[in-house]
């Protein structure tokens, strides 16, 4: 039997047998080389209570080349692209070892959620947010967990209707509602205000560093 197939089958079986880690690996269309992994957000982090899904592609010369993994679930984390789900983790690149398994790699992802490395970011904007104001970053991360990963408070926390949707956008970007309202009052569209403030990292202590004129300038571009 093909060594790669044998190994992958064994890894999937091992995962099924192990109930304690709550890590799942499922097949996508019966192809054992394209999988979906799932794990719980680690306790004591903004990701707690969420369930995160990862797209897994097994390369041809696995396990001698690293698996390709990216988040399917949107994650607000400095080392995960908020747009594509691409992951910046050394073991998925040059630090890969053939001894690592799908399960151990998923566990590594889980622990990456516990310990972000903002100095080596995948998503620079998120990393900036993290560096500027950790508590604000955590709020946003928790909010994303709630919205995308089915975290707690998802059902009754957010308001309903149009007002709720508006608040969502602001909370999603980790911005202060008052700030958005302030520039909206000048006659700019809400979406544009959110976009510019997010880009300029208008959060926490950084607010004092950014002149209002600078924001208006950006808004006018």
């Amino acid at each position, binding site marked *: 039997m093909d060594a790669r197939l044998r*190994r992958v089958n064994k890894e999937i079986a091992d995962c099924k047998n192990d109930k304690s880690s709550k890590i799942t690996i499922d097949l996508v269309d019966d192809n054992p080389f394209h999988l979906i992994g799932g794990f719980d957000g680690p306790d004591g982090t903004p990701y707690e209570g969420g369930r995160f899904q990862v797209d897994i592609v097994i390369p041809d*010369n696995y396990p*001698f080349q690293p698996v390709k993994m990216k988040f399917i679930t949107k994650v607000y984390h400095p080392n995960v692209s908020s747009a594509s789900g691409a992951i910046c983790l050394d073991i998925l690149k040059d630090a890969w070892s053939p001894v690592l398994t799908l399960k151990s790699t998923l566990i590594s992802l889980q622990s990456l959620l516990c310990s972000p490395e903002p100095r080596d970011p995948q998503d620079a904007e998120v990393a900036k947010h993290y560096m500027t104001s950790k508590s604000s970053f955590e709020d946003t991360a928790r909010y994303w967990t709630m919205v995308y990963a089915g975290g707690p408070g998802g059902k009754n926390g957010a308001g309903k209707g149009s007002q709720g949707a508006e608040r969502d956008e602001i909370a999603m970007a980790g911005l202060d509602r008052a700030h958005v309202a302030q520039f909206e009052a000048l006659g700019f569209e809400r979406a544009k205000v959110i976009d510019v403030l997010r880009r300029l990292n208008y959060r926490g202590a950084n607010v004092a560093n950014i002149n209002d004129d600078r924001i208006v300038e950006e808004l006018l571009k």
Partner: protein
Amino acid sequence: MSSDYEISDEENEYYPYDEEDEEMADAEEDGSASEIEVDGFGGDFKVGARSERKIYEVEYSPLSQPDVERIMQADIDHISSIFGVEPSVAAILLRHLNWNKEKLIEKYMDNASAVAVAAGVELPPREPSPPPARSSSSRPATTGPQRTTRRSSSETKGSKGKRASPPIEETGPFVCPICFDDSQTEFLALMCDHKFCASCWKEYITSKVRTEAECMITCMAEGCNIAAPDPFVDKALADDRETWTRYQELLVRQFVSCIPHLKFCPYPSCTYTVSCPSAATKSSLSQIVPIVTCGASQTHVFCFGCPIDADHRPVVCAVARMWLKKCQDDSETANWIKSNTKECSKCQSTIEKNGGCNHMTCKKCKYEFCWVCMGPWTEHGTSWYSCNRYDEKASVEARDAQTRSRASLERYLHYYNRWANHEQSAKLSMELYAKTEKKMEEMQITSELTWIQVQFMKKAVDIVHKCRMTLKWTYAMAYYLAPGNHKELFEDNQRDLERAVEELSELIEAPIDPETIMTLRQKVTDKTVYVQKRNEILLEDTAKGYLEERWSWNTTVEGFEA
């Protein structure tokens, strides 16, 4: 001990000290000793170079892969004897520090253990249970391959028998943690004792070597930095000799890329290396044009100092690069646009006026303006076909700017056309060569001449081709030379060579007549000698000019600043 070093016949110079000297512990002394050696090394290559070297030629020596391997081996043996380690360990240490022997010696004398751990030839210190037989030793232990087989577990080739690795006691079938295949019978491990089955090792190394072109192989275990020594790789690859050859090629490439006076032949699938110590530094490239030929074929001509795979004498690398970039960049398209077009003052579209009056209407934005003053047409009132609003000062400036732009374009084209012409002619001369060959055959039949006597044609074609290449690059050089006496002298030489080459070209193409063949032969031979002489004069003069720092450029050239 110096018997492995075969490319030199000055072995005493290479190893000016004997073995006791090498054992000296003083780090400072060691540093100086290795410096002497490096000097001796450079001197070695003079032996290989031609004895009568022209001023425009550089000293270099082509090396085959086995030659380079021997040089590597000499370094490895040297380090191995100084540090008292296995050659395979010395090789890993050298690779780890990019073959910088001085740095390695210095660092190793400073903290041998740290270097060995970083290079992956020694296990990092562990607090609770130190591994047996190694904890007290400060120097790296041998890393000979450790092969454990269920049938025989005492096969440790390459280690000096010092290794006291106990035979692995098998309790139940060992399952390789990578392939989970319990039918495997052969297991291999590096000094870190991370055991994997032989077929996984083979797959792993093949994947590293083949797909990643990686020659630094480490243990497969997660976070384990222990490096695989060559004998281990050899053993693990077993019968896959192709990958083993590739691995050795990669090692040579890594070595060559680390040593400044070595360069790999850029021709496809060529495995030769050229050593050119005189062109090893960047600063030397403003003084010499290091054109070299590798040992595999006379046609593998390339520049040691830059990526141009051709003879670009007489221009130095920096100028040749600038010229090629200029020709490639299409920067002259911009020049043309500048001298032939204007921009719509509203939407900035480029407009070429190809007739009609000065009342322009931009096709794109429908803006109406005056071609002469570029102002809006509405302000012109009734002065339809002439512009009297024209500002005097602005007009002079605009005209000047246009003339300047045109002049620089024309200047460039002057040089470019001649450059391209010589390139074209050189190509044609290759076709001419085919014709000449036929002619030579004819001559053998129609005249009394023997084969050796008709060779003058071949020689003439070769020289024409070579000189056209020189001429081609002289135009690149002239384009950047600052005006002055030196440039005039240079252009005189260029003209003389050009005239001679054209005359010779004409002679070669002349029809062959059995009656006149003897006179033709005389003429061609004479002309060939003359052309060759002129080419040498030009090359010698420019080469001397670089050494005397006589040339000055009309622009900033890398290496000529200050």
